[in-house]
Every structure is written in C-alpha cells, then in structure tokens.
C-alpha cells in the first residue's frame, strides 16, 4: 500500500530476486536433463514447460522488476533531486499489478502440466488445438497484467523525468546515465507493450472465440503473430539491457574516480539511438519465416546499424576506465561485475552481429548459437549489471558493507559458471544442435556436459551469494567512508548540497526541494550548484 518510491523499489527488488531464483532453478533442471542425451529425467512436455517458464521468469519477473522497477524507483527521484515520482499512487498500482502478474504466471506453470509453447508462444502451437487448457490463457493474462504494470510505471517515469527536474536543469545536461537509459527504456515500454497486448488479445480470441487471426483456413496468418510479438519483442530486449547500460556507466565512472562516464553526451545519444533503432529491426527474429528477400536485406542492414551506437558505448566505457584504475584488487567489488559486463556483453554483441545476417541466420536460426548469443548479453550482460548495481548501491540502501572476499568469490564462481555454460553453445549451434530440444545426437554430448558443469558451478555461485547476504546481515558491518565523487554526493545526499555522510539512505529525502542555480561568469563554462532556499 505504500506510495514511497523507496519502499516500492525495495518490493520490486525482493520480487525480482525471488523470481530470479526460480528462473535459475528452472535452468538448472534443464541443465541436469541436458547433461547426457536421451529423455532421461523429465518428460517432453515437462521439459518444455520448464524451458518456457525459465524464460518468462527471467525476463518478466527478474530482469525487468529489478532493473526498471527496483533501480528506477529508487534512483529516479534521488538523481533528479525530487521527493518522489510524479504519481506515487500509480507507482503502487504498478507494483501490485506486477505481483498479480507473477501470481498468474505461477498459476499457469502449476496447472495442467504447465505451458510448453516457449515464451514466444507461436501459434499454431499455442492455439487451442495443440495447447488446450488454462496454462496458455493464464500466461497471456499474466502478460497483460505485466504490460499494464509496465505502461503505468513507464508513464510515471517519463512524467517525472520530463517535468520534475530542477528548474534550470536543461534536458541535455541530465548527467546521470541511469536517468537517460531509464528514459529510453520507458519510451520503448510505452510504445511496444500495447502492440504485444494487441497480439495477445488476438491469440485469446483465436483460442476461444473462433476468430481466424492466426488460422490460414480462415484467411489469417501465423506470421501475423510473429510480427506483432517481435515488434514488441525486439524493443523488449533493449528494455532489458538499457538500464544495465546506465548502471555500468555509474559503476565504471566511480571506480575510475571520474566525475562522469567518458563522452557523456555521446553516451546519451547512443542510448537514444539504440532505443529508436530498436523499433526498426524486429524482422531479424523472422529470417526463416518466409519473408521477402528485400525485406530480409533491409532487416539485416538495419540490425547491423545498431552495432554502431552500441560500439560507441563500449568504447566510451573503456575510455572511462583508462587512466582511472591503478590497482584492480583495491577497487570496489562491483567493478568486477562492470568489467565482466564490458567484456562479455561485447562478445554477445559480436555474435549478435553475426546473427544479424539473414544468410547466416538461415543456418543458425533456432540453434544453440542464438541461445549462446542472448545468454551472453542477458546472463552476462543484464545479470552482471544487476549484481554489480546491487553491490554498488548496497551500502547506500542498508548502510552495511559485505565481506569483499565473499562477493568476489560469488563473482568468480558466476563468471566461470556462465562462461562454461554458454561458450560451448556457440560450437553446439554451429554444429547443428537446435534449441528447445531435450534430446540430441551423441556428437554433442561433450559440449553439453561442459555446459551442465557450468550450470552446477552457477548453482554453487548462488549458494555463495546467499552466504554473502547472510553474512552481511548477520555482522552488520557499518560503512564508514562512502566513496562518492563530489557531484554524485549531491543526489545521494539528503539535499543539503554537500551530500549525505550518513547511510543508509533515509526514507524521505529531498523533503525541501533544493533550488538549482547556474552561475555563469563571462565566457567561462556555467557552474551548477544546488542551494536550499
């Protein structure tokens, strides 16, 4: 019931991590099954249910609530130096709708054997003839609720970012990268989620009201679903990664003792460019669906173009690090997550460039190569940013400091685990292993076994994470010196202009809205300062 943005952000974080654990467990179930060939542990339908739920849990209930709901709610008001979001009650609605969505999705998973159509729910597999019963309907309604929650939250964020900045803070001078990336994320959400809602509505109508949207017999087309879904689906993956980009900019600039990320205006433009171009490339998920050759050529070219702003960001991060770190061992543990992100997300991005080509996609579509690509950018992109951001802001949220060796052990185990799991998938895909398959020819056993070993390693890593959390809450080691760069302390502070030296962050900040003043002396650069009037 709370309307406080910090409470709501915390609820999102709890919900996100809980769902992430479920998603991780589901993935471990799959990895055990895939350890050797043959259907030996799980039945076919069960395996596909676990696989579909893994995707739903991770995308809609782990990454999105944590990075957008959690970090967005916590930091948008703080970084804009305002009391709360524009519409706190609507914020509460968003979190309640998200909880409801989680409930419906769990219901879908637990009933009638779950839903085995994949998170992409292509008809005719998701149509009534092949997937009778309530799981698919409950999943569709769950996505409707999650969509409503996302739209409400995005509207809230956009209104706050547009309207509630301090008086003279011009839009282009918005320094915090997290604000820019959440701004892009919100625009993507408010534009693409309704198209998903349209597609889902058509699926429900087809399933229960004898309409013909996706039935060729009535003149419809299953490809219509693919268009509608991927018109949402592609911006969705940018929604997943854009907040992570913002987090990494924050971590790296602080770890390198720089005031802001290198080329901050370019970074803002790159984020906006990725967001905008993300609307124009959905066809690269449909390269084998029978599209026209010219259509495929366009989507190849457009997808390759997105690599440009992404590359700008990667180079700028590297430039931020340059000249800033003298000893890696002495840095904050979140730096490791950020550096891991820069390296591994780049690898994932490069395989994305390969998959962008329609010609290669003809061979690699729905193979393990695709699985490797998106797990590199998600499991090692978004997830690394979430963990990095979590430890980066943990002292701010709780006033406590974890044991550095435990955090680093968790990092190392995760790093080894995810790389062991997903790097062999490149070879699996290139040698022809299809995705979403439970059984495979014996030639793939070696790499599958290594991938499963990596899975066990990430299981241990999660145990390490629990140990770290348990230890920090048990010992309650207080933070003595918060390492804030000066400009940041203003927005992490309680608004007194010189920053907060008492952590954890209080429940009500910026109660007295500071006035923002620009001093400009002749030809010199303007000097910004916040004062309490």
């Amino acid at each position: 019931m709370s309307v406080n943005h910090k409470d709501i952000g915390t609820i999102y974080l709890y919900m996100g991590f809980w769902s992430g654990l479920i998603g991780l467990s589901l993935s471990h179930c799959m990895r055990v099954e895939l350890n050797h060939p043959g259907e030996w542990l799980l039945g076919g339908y069960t395996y596909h249910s676990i696989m579909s739920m893994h995707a739903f849990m991770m995308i809609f209930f782990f990454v999105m609530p944590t990075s957008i709901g959690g970090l967005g709610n916590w930091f948008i008001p703080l970084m804009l130096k305002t009391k709360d979001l524009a519409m706190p009650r609507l914020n509460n609605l968003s979190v309640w709708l998200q909880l409801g969505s989680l409930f419906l999705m769990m219901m879908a998973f637990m009933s009638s054997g779950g839903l085995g159509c994949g998170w992409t729910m292509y008809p005719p597999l998701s149509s009534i003839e092949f997937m009778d019963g309530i799981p698919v309907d409950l999943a569709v309604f769950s996505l409707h609720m999650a969509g409503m929650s996302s739209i409400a939250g995005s509207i809230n964020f956009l209104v706050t970012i547009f309207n509630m900045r301090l008086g003279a803070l011009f839009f282009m001078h918005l320094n915090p990268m997290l604000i820019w990336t959440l701004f892009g994320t919100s625009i993507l959400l408010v534009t693409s989620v309704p198209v998903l809602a349209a597609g889902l509505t058509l699926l429900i109508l087809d399933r229960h009201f004898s309409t013909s949207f996706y039935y060729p017999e009535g003149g419809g087309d299953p490809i219509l679903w693919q268009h509608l879904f991927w018109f949402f689906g592609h911006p969705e993956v940018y929604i997943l990664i854009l907040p992570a980009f913002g987090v990494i900019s924050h971590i790296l600039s602080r770890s390198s003792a720089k005031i802001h990320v290198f080329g901050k205006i370019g970074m803002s433009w790159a984020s906006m460019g990725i967001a905008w171009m993300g609307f124009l490339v959905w066809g690269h998920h449909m390269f084998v669906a029978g599209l026209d050759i010219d259509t495929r050529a366009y989507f190849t070219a457009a997808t390759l173009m997105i690599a440009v702003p992404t590359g700008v960001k990667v180079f700028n991060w590297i430039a931020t690090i340059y000249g800033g770190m003298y000893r890696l061992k002495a840095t904050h543990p979140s730096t490791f997550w950020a550096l891991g992100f820069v390296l591994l997300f780049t690898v994932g991005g490069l395989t994305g460039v390969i998959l962008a080509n329609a010609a290669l996609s003809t061979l690699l579509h729905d193979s393990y190569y695709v699985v490797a690509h998106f797990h590199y950018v998600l499991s090692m992109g978004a997830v690394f940013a979430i963990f990095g951001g979590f430890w980066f802001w943990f002292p701010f949220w709780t006033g406590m400091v974890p044991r550095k060796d435990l955090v680093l052990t968790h990092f190392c185990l995760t790093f080894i685990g995810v790389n062991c799991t997903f790097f062999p998938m490149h070879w699996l895909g290139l040698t022809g292993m299809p995705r979403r398959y439970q059984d495979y020819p014996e030639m793939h056993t070696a790499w599958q076994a290594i991938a499963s070993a990596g899975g066990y390693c990430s299981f241990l890593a999660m145990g390490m994470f629990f140990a770290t959390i348990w230890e920090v809450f048990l010992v309650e080691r207080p933070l003595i010196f918060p390492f804030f760069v000066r400009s940041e302390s203003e927005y992490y502070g309680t608004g007194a202009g010189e920053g907060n030296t008492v952590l954890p962050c209080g429940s009500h900040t910026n109660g007295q809205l500071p006035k923002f003043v620009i001093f400009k002396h002749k030809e010199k650069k303007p000097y910004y300062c916040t004062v309490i009037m």
Partner: protein
Amino acid sequence: MGSSPWPACVSIITISLFVNMAFGFNRLVSKTELWGGTLVLLILLMLVCGAWWESLSLETLVGMNTAQEVNNMKLAFALFIWSEIFFFIGLFWAFFHSALVPSDELGCMWPPIVGIMPMDPYALPLLGVTILVSSGYSANWAVKTVKAGFNDWRSMGVTVGLGILFSCLQLYEYKSAGFTMQDGIYGSCFYLITGFHGLHVLAGTMFNIYCLKMMVYGSYSPSHMTSIQMSVWYWHFVDIVWVAAYLFIYIWGNWGMYVTPYAVWMKKMEIFEHKNWPGIVDILRFLFTIY
C-alpha cells in the same frame, strides 16, 4: 501523499477477472459463473476506480495539486493516449496484414470472394462518421465555453448525446450485419477494430458524462479545467481512430464491391475521349478521379 488501498484493490480484482476468464473460457466453470463473475467483478472494478477518482477530486479540491502536478497529470494522460494509439496500431496491423495481400483461402481478394456481404460504406457508416466528427466539434465548443469562464453544459450534452447515438447506431449495424466475427479473417478484423473502438467510445462517453455533471454544477473555471481537457483529448483520439477505421476498413477495404477499379479506370480514361494530348485540367482530373 498518504497510502491508498485502491491500487491493491484494482490489482486483486484484475487477478480475479483474469482467473475467472481463464477458467470460464476453458469451460471449467459454468457459463453463468463466467458471465456473472465477470459482471460482478467489473462492477466492483468500477466502484474501486470511482473511489480512486474521488480521492483525486478531493485532493484537487483541498489544493494538493500544484501547477506542476497538474502538468504532470496532463503529460501522463497524453502518454496514456499514446499507448492506446499503439494498441490500435497493433489491431490495424492485423487488418493490413490480411487485407493488403489477401491469402489464397480468400480467393486473393478483399473482401473475400465468398461468404461476406460487406456493408455499403456510403449508407449507415457514413452517418456514423458524421455523428462522431460532429461530436468532436461540440466537444471543442464545450472546452471553449469553459475557457471563456462559463460552463455551458449544453455543449457537453450534445457531445454525450452524439456519442450515445453513435453507439446505438453501431449496435444496430452489428445486429443487421451480413457477417459475424467468426466469418474468417474479414469478420475477425472488422469486429475486432470496431468492437475495441466501441469499448473506447463507451469509456470516452463515461468520461464525458462525468464532465457533463461537472459542467451542470458549474464546477469548472478557466484555471481548473484539466479533466474536461483530458476528456476532450480522449474523445478526439476516439474520433480519429474511427475516421481511420472508416477510411481503411469500410471504404478502402470494400473498394471492389461498390466501386470497382475497372470502373474507376474507365472514368479516368475518359480524358482521352475528345483529345489526343491531355491538358493540365485533364491531368488533374485523371489523378483525382476515385469514384
């Protein structure tokens, strides 16, 4: 702002609605339960939303909404309309996907070669468009009167009346239509777009009725007129969607039935009847002959 129970209530009611629908559509509960449950939950949802709306009004009346907050709400509503626009873009996408390249099962024609008797777009639907567009003008009139400082409720009354008239017209059109939603992709797309549009007309009419009530009580003033501005924006959005639906589905979609391309071409070719070389006027006539 203090905590409020309404968001949680909305969510719980929404969950119940969806669970009810999931079980009902799959015939795991009786039809009575499905219809009755949906009705009860929708009424409950209306009551909760009404309570939420009441909180908003009370906050305005006690002066909690600063000028910035009012701007926030306007921007938020504009973004909500943006999201609704994209929902309709998704629905229209379904229509264009099916109608631009009609599939073999339809006889490679739109309207399909058999089974559908489309409506004459220059009959009742034209009346509907006229009614809705006129209601847009009366809505603007209402806003003008409020801006000028007097609450002339007749303007909003006309808007509400025209909206209700349009809904009744559409209902009659549905009843007398020559095809249903189950009649292939043509019927599916037609009822999908007109149906969702109708729901939005009903929602917009309810918002307009609220504004009508406010105007009857004389509650608006030039500095306090946000809700009527939002209502009229929403009404214009509904109107524009209908104009698009009319032009693309009724007129363009049914083009071959009442006006064939062959007839149009022959009419265009008439410019060559008495001359060898067409002049400027003839070229313009060629370009703009569509009927």
